[in-house]
């Protein structure tokens, strides 16, 4: 355990001393900050724009950190040969992979924490200046961000999986693709249902279903619609399947990390 923790904290330290992170952080602040000014242009309530843009920024920039920092973590250690010295001192490869995952998820979470503070601050200021008291909004925001933290487990695990056997560029592209597909699994299911109504598409649909079940269901963890439109959705918003989403995130992450550890353990250097 101490090995995983040590590698994780070292990875985190490496990430927070990296220029790439500060560049991402700069654009993140710019995006969330812009919602503060853009809300005056919104037609149907400035708070909706702040919430919408804020939550999208958190999700998108979490992905960017996983993509631009995460996919380099393992190839960089192989290139610089630090992995050789770590393995020679008795650290097992699976411990190394889990350590890298821990460090990256910690980096992403610290970023999300910073964004959350900023976003809630802007919302608070908005409500204070418009004489609105929206305690329920904050409650929904916290729930949405919590689900986003779970979604990031999957994204980071996928980035680590690809980087355990592939090049950084390919890993970044693949992670991005998995993220996009993961956000659209509901639409994908609708498409499969439509196709299955046609004749002679059994094999094609079976193939699509396999892909559907293999993909992470990130939209199960996306509460943005509920947060932005909870007044209209009413009871439908309250019935969001939190438990199923959390279970999916944790099991999917565990399986992906297991495969990453296996792939890295079998790899020849």
């Amino acid at each position, binding site marked *: 355990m101490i090995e995983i923790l040590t590698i994780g904290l*070292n990875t985190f330290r490496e990430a927070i001393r990296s220029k790439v992170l500060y560049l991402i952080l700069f654009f993140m602040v710019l995006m969330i900050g812009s919602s503060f000014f853009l809300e005056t242009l919104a037609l149907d309530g400035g708070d909706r724009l702040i919430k919408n843009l804020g939550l999208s920024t958190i999700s998108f920039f979490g992905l960017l950190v996983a993509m631009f920092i995460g996919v380099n973590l393992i190839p960089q250690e192989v290139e610089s040969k630090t*992995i*050789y010295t770590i*393995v*020679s*001192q*008795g*650290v*097992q490869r699976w411990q190394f992979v889990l350590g890298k995952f821990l460090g990256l998820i910690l980096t992403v979470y610290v970023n999300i924490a910073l964004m959350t503070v900023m976003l809630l601050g802007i919302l608070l200021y908005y409500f204070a200046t418009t004489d609105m008291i929206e305690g329920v909004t904050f409650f929904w925001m916290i729930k949405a961000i919590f689900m986003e933290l779970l979604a990031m487990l999957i994204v980071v695990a996928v980035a680590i999986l690809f980087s355990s056997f592939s090049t950084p560029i390919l890993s970044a592209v693949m992670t991005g693709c998995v993220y996009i597909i993961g956000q659209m699994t509901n639409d994908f299911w609708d498409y499969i249902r439509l196709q299955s109504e046609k004749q002679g598409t059994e094999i094609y649909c079976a193939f699509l279903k396999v892909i559907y079940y293999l993909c992470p269901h990130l939209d199960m963890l996306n509460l943005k619609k509920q947060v932005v439109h909870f007044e209209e959705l009413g009871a439908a918003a309250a019935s969001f399947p939190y438990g199923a989403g959390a279970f999916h995130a944790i099991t999917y992450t565990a399986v992906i990390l297991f495969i990453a550890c296996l792939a890295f353990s079998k790899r020849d250097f």
Partner: protein
Amino acid sequence: MAVLKTENLTKIFKKGWKEAKVALDGLSIEVQEGEIFGFLGPNGAGKTTTIKILLRLLKPTSGRAEILDKDLATAPTRLRVGYMPENPYFYRFLTGEEFLQFYAKLNHIPSNQRKKRIDELIETVGMNHARNVRIRDYSKGMVQRIGLAQALMHDPKLVLLDEPLSGLDPIGRKEIRDLVYALKEQGRTIFFCSHILSDVQDICDRVAILHLGKLLKLGSLSELLGTEKDRVEVELKMPEGTTKESLGIQGDFHNGIFKTMLDNTEQANQFLDQWKSKGAVVRALIPQRKSLEELFVETIRAQDPKVALET
């Protein structure tokens, strides 16, 4: 007692469906406790492949290896082996001390003993002045030294050094050589891969020469190079009108000065008698032992006359 032993160690890399490259071909060596063992060979000889197998970063295709009497295939994860890679790029964002702390934690050194151990190692490699400087600001020699410190963190009995002298200036090379001597004095066994043969000759007790994965020579320096200085370097000022063609043997001939190496004293006497009678003047006669570099080039060329060597 053998600290490291390989038996018929073979590694074949598959390239596509049909092609295969033999990186290591039945390597059998033994490294004895307390010795500095030089592991030599041109690029592509199989040195790094051997080290990677010993570190369990690669699985051999066949054969076996033992470290400290334990078969590598079944040995526990933690073996007392230290490793310093060739041209390492360690965590550039860490200071030297933070870097060593990382390895101390990986080795489960209790927090109350960690500082003492790091202080000892920093002292050993002479890096006290730069312990709080980030590694990205280190010179190449400093990176090698801090790399050596991490390799020693868990007090290993066997230390594998992959090209520890490459890219260093003469002072840096001397410092690392002195450190290697100091490690030997502490009773450690050193497995030393290097291209810099003059340094290997100075510090190694035994050497192995590898080419294209095959072991070509193995033995102590006296076994391989001989103990007697029976060769003679001769330098003569030749009489006017001498041409290179008229000399009859290989050597350097410039501005009337001829310099050559003769295999024994009889040959040297014969050559001197022949040319002194024609008016040549002896400028120097130096007894020589064969150098490791000459042996290396001879051995590799005998196996593969077309090989381009960088020594």
